[in-house]
C-alpha cells in the first residue's frame, strides 16, 4: 500500500494549525510577555525609588570622597573623587583575587595529589585539612586568621627583625621596596637584546638539527650569554633602588608593606579555596582511566613522570570547568574583606553608599563590576578549556 501523498498547495493548512505560523506566534507572545514584565518591573522600581526620595543618579561620582582608604596601589587622598575611591577598591579586589587564585591553585593541586598519595600520613593530613576547611564558614575562618594569628604577632615595639631590612610585626610585613630608576628602560632594552639572541640561537640550532648537522652546546651558550647580559647590565645600570622601611615613632615608613588585613584575607581565601580545588583535582585525576596508569607503568615511567605527562593532561579536561567556578567563588568571596578592614570594592562601595545617601546606584555599580570581573575570568578559563579539550586527539 502506498503511503498517502503529502499535502500539496491545493490543500492549504489553516493558520492555527500551520506549524510555521504557530512557532512564530509563540515567539511573539513570549517576547510581548517578557517586554511587559520588564516594563512593569522598571516602572515599579522607579516609582518606589521616587516615593522613598532615594533619587537615582551618578552625579556623586565627581564629588570629593572625604574618607580615607587604608591601603591603595595608586596614590589616594580623601580629597580625591568618589570615582577614584571606587577604582582604588576595584584595584584592591583585583590584586587580592589574582594573587589568591594563583596561590590557591598551587596549594589546591598539592592537596589534591596528596589526598591520593600512597603515604598514609600525608593522605590523612590532606583529608583532615579538606574536611575541616570545607565545612566551616569562610567568615569565621577569616576572623580566626586575622584576630588569632596575624594580630597576635609581636607589637611594633617588639618587631621581629630579619637581615635585609625585613621587619615583621602585627602591623604588617615590611620589605625593602624596589623603586625603578631612570636607567630601568636601558636595562630592559639590554634584556630584550639578550632574549633576542637566545631565540635566534635556538632557531639556528633547530635548523642545524633538522638538516642533520647538529651544533652541540649552542643553546647552553645562548642561555649563558643571556644570564651574563642580565647580571652585568644590572650591575652597570643599577636600575632599581631599594626604599628601606624605617621605624618611626608609631609605625614603619617607606618600603613595601603587606598589611595584616591583606595577609589575613589572602591566607583565608587561599586556604578555603584550595580545599575545594583539591577535591576538584582529585576528582579529575581519579577520572583518568586505570589503563593509562598501567600503560605508563609498563613503559617504565616514574611516578612523577606519569603524573606530569600522562595523568594530568587528561585530568585537566575534567578539572578546568569546576576550577573556573572556584576561581569565581574566590573573587566573590574577597568581598568578605569588609569584615576585617581590608578596603576592597565592596567595602568602598558600602562607605560610598552611606556617605552619598544613594545606596541603589552604588550597589548597581558594585554588582556590575563584580559581574564584569566574573565574566572576564570565566571567558579566559573557557578559552583555556577549549585548548585543553582539543589537545586530546
Amino acid at each position, binding site marked *: 500500500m502506498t503511503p498517502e501523498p503529502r499535502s500539496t498547495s491545493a490543500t492549504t493548512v489553516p493558520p492555527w494549525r500551520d506549524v510555521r505560523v504557530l512557532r512564530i*506566534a509563540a515567539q511573539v507572545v513570549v517576547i510581548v*510577555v517578557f517586554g511587559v514584565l520588564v516594563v512593569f518591573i522598571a516602572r515599579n522600581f522607579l516609582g518606589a525609588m521616587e516615593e522613598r526620595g532615594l533619587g537615582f543618579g551618578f552625579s556623586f561620582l565627581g564629588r570629593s570622597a572625604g574618607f580615607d582608604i587604608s591601603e591603595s596601589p595608586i596614590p589616594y587622598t580623601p580629597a580625591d573623587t568618589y570615582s577614584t575611591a571606587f577604582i582604588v577598591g576595584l584595584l584592591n579586589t583585583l590584586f587580592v583575587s589574582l594573587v589568591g587564585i594563583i596561590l590557591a591553585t598551587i596549594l589546591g593541586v598539592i592537596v589534591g595529589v596528596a589526598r591520593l598519595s600512597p603515604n598514609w600520613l600525608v593522605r590523612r593530613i590532606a583529608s583532615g585539612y579538606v574536611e575541616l576547611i570545607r565545612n566551616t564558614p569562610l567568615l569565621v575562618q577569616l576572623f580566626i586568621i586575622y584576630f588569632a594569628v596575624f594580630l597576635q604577632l609581636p607589637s611594633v615595639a617588639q618587631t621581629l627583625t630579619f637581615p635585609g631590612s625585613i621587619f615583621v610585626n602585627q602591623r604588617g610585613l615590611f620589605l625593602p621596596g624596589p623603586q625603578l630608576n631612570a636607567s630601568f628602560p636601558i636595562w630592559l632594552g639590554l634584556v630584550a637584546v639578550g632574549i633576542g639572541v637566545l631565540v635566534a640561537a635556538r632557531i639556528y640550532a633547530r635548523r642545524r638539527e633538522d638538516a642533520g648537522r647538529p651544533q652541540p652546546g649552542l643553546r647552553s651558550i645562548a642561555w649563558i650569554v643571556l644570564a651574563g647580559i642580565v647580571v652585568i647590565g644590572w650591575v652597570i645600570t643599577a636600575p632599581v633602588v631599594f626604599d628601606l622601611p624605617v621605624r618611626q615613632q*608609631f609605625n614603619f615608613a617607606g618600603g613595601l608593606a603587606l598589611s595584616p588585613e591583606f595577609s589575613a584575607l589572602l591566607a583565608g581565601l587561599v586556604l578555603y579555596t584550595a580545599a575545594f580545588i583539591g577535591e576538584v583535582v582529585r576528582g579529575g585525576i581519579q577520572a583518568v582511566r586505570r589503563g593509562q596508569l598501567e600503560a605508563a607503568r609498563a613503559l617504565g615511567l616514574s611516578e612523577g613522570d606519569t603524573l606530569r605527562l600522562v595523568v594530568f593532561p587528561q585530568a585537566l579536561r575534567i578539572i578546568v570547568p569546576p576550577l573556573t567556578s572556584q576561581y569565581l567563588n574566590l573573587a566573590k568571596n574577597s568581598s568578605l574583606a*569588609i569584615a576585617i578592614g581590608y578596603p576592597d570594592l565592596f567595602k568602598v562601595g*558600602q562607605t560610598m553608599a552611606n556617605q552619598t545617601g544613594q545606596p541603589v546606584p552604588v550597589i548597581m555599580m558594585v554588582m556590575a563590576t563584580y559581574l564584569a570581573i566574573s565574566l572576564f575570568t570565566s571567558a579566559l578559563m573557557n578559552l583555556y578549556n577549549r585548548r585543553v579539550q582539543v589537545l586530546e586527539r
Partner: protein
Amino acid sequence: MTRSGMPVIAMIILALVVTACGDTPPATDTDTSEAPAASVDAAESTAPAESAAPGETTDNRLALVQERGELICGVNGSLPGFSFLDDQGQNTGFDADFCRALAAAVLGDPEAVDFRALSADQRGPALQTGEVDVLIRNTTWTVGRDTAWGLFAPTTFYDGQAIMVDSTAVDATTLEDLAGATICVQSGTTTELNLADTFSSLGVDIETQVFADIDPTYAAYEEGRCDAVTSDRSQLVARRTAFANPDDHVILEAVLSKEPLGPVAPLGDHEWFNVVKWVVFATIEAEELGITSENVQDMAETSVNPVVLRLLGQPVPDTDPFDSGLGLEPDWVIDVISAVGNYAEIYDRNLGPGTPFDLERGLNSLWTDGGLLYAPPYR
C-alpha cells in the same frame, strides 16, 4: 481544538493578564506587615538586622504603628549605656529607653518595641526604605543626613568626637603627638570624615584603619593593631568598660567635632515627626517641672500648676480642654513618664553615677543648669 492551538491560547491569555496588571501605577503601600514577636533573643540582636519586613513608606506612620501594635526601633545593639543586651536578653540603654518612651506614648505599652540592631552602614538605608519606624542609634545630626536620611528630632545627647589611646603603649596628650600613628575608626560615620578633615587641617599625617562593624574596631585596637581609636566620647567611655584593663586607656582632651546625637524619623511624615519630637521634649519638660516616674500620678491628681496639668493632659480649671493635635491620647505624657521616667532618670539610670560610665551631665543639663536642654512650651 487541536493540540497545538492550546498552548498559544494559554499564552495569549497570560499576556493579557500580565498587561492588565502591568498598567496599574505603583500605589503607596500602606498595608501593615506581620510584626515579628516583641521579645528579642540574643542571637537575633547581635547580628546586623536582615530586612525581615518589606520596607514600607507611608505618610501616615502613626496610624501604621498603632495598627501594627508594635514600634520598630533601629538601635545599635552593641553600645553599652546606649543600647545593648543585658544578661536577661533585654535591650538596655539610653537610646533603648527613648524607644520605649515613644512606644509608651503611641501604643501605651513601653515593651511593645521590636529592636533592630543596625550597623553604621545600614542605618541610613534602613530609615530611607522605611524598614524601621524610627532610628535611635547614637546618630549625629548633620545637614547631609537631614536631607537624605530623615528628620532629626531634638538632640538627646550632646557629644563630641574624641580619641582614646593606650597610655601604657602610647605617650600622647595632644593631637599633634599622634603624627604617624594608626587610628581605628568605623566606616559610614561622621567620625571617619571628621578624622580626615581634622588631621589634614592640622597638617599631621596619620594612617587610618577602617572597619565596618563596631566590635572588630575595638577588638583590633585592644590587640594593638592601632595606636588609637576614635569615636564619640560617650561611645569610647562605654566601650572602654568592656576592656581587659580599662584604666590603661586614656581619652585625650581634644574635641574633634560636635556630635549632637538624637532620634531620626523617616522623611515626609510630619505627623509622625511631631510625635517623636514631642516625646523627647516631654521628658525634658518633665525634668524641668520636677515630674518623676514616682510622683507623676500624684502630680496629675493634686497639682495646681496649670503648666503641669496641661502637660499631663489633665483638665485645667476655667479653661477648655487642651488638644495638642499630635493624635495621641491626652494623658500620653503620664504613660511616658511612668514607663521610663523624665530625662534625668533616663540619663542617671543608663549613664549616671550609679553606672560604670559615670558621665557628667555637662551640656546635657537643663538650660536652667547651664546646659543645652530646652523644651518649648506645651500649649
